[in-house]
């Protein structure tokens, strides 16, 4: 199963600055094995959803052009300390992960 995500939050002037680091190879499908000449199959995160207190704030569709171990930084106005942040992703092979954190 997927490795845990790293989540950082910081409250700045009434808005929560959130940064999420997901651990994922983000294989593009373009890279070739130098010996066999075969392309490594694409393996990348396609969907990321972030919710604050169960309300969606960010719904991202990603392509394989996002870097390995994707970083997503976003800001939510009106979020308060203690609000429940949840992040979940799913990749093109159906693997998924979910993490929760309290905004601080």
């Amino acid at each position, binding site marked *: 199963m997927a490795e845990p995500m790293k989540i950082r939050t910081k409250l700045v002037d009434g808005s929560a600055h959130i940064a999420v680091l997901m651990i994922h190879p*983000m294989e593009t499908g373009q890279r070739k094995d130098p010996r066999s000449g075969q392309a490594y199959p694409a393996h990348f995160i396609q969907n990321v959803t972030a919710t604050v207190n169960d309300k*969606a704030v960010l719904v*991202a*569709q990603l392509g394989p052009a*996002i870097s390995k171990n994707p970083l*997503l*930084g976003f800001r*939510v106005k009106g979020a308060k300390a203690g609000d429940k942040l949840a992040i979940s992703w799913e990749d093109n092979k159906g693997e998924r992960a979910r993490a929760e954190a309290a905004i601080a």
Partner: protein
Amino acid sequence: MDQLRRLILKGGGASGVLAVALAAGLLRPTGAFAADWNKTAFESKAMADALKNIGAAGAAESAEILIKAPDIAENGAVVPIEVTTRIAGAESIALLAEKNPFPLMAYIDLTNGAEAYINTRFKMGQTSVVKVVVKAGGKSYIASREVKVTIGGCGG
């Protein structure tokens, strides 16, 4: 199955409930998410097609979209980009790189108080124009910026 039915009835398919149902393992993830990934747009090979497939053909050039990215990226595998916009009521931000095999890199919807801001890192194989599309109030706005790459991010 009853519990799943209740959840769906209660939430009317709201994404928050969907996320909860997913986490609880009540829904098969592929079925639930697959529809939300714009395959046509992500597999478009030309910038014009990608723009058309995200519904942003004929987007108006805007100086209100600020793209913070390096002029010269030393490592094309990890190019930082930060986007902010002063366009009121921004609903989504899309990132595209003209010379990538598939120009569309990300399409991000922002709702429920999320600010018009996004920060991420992307790959580019060669020097290219990076475009950002912001949608607000049913209109599309676009801004461009060139990023030079000294080492490509695709060949490895």
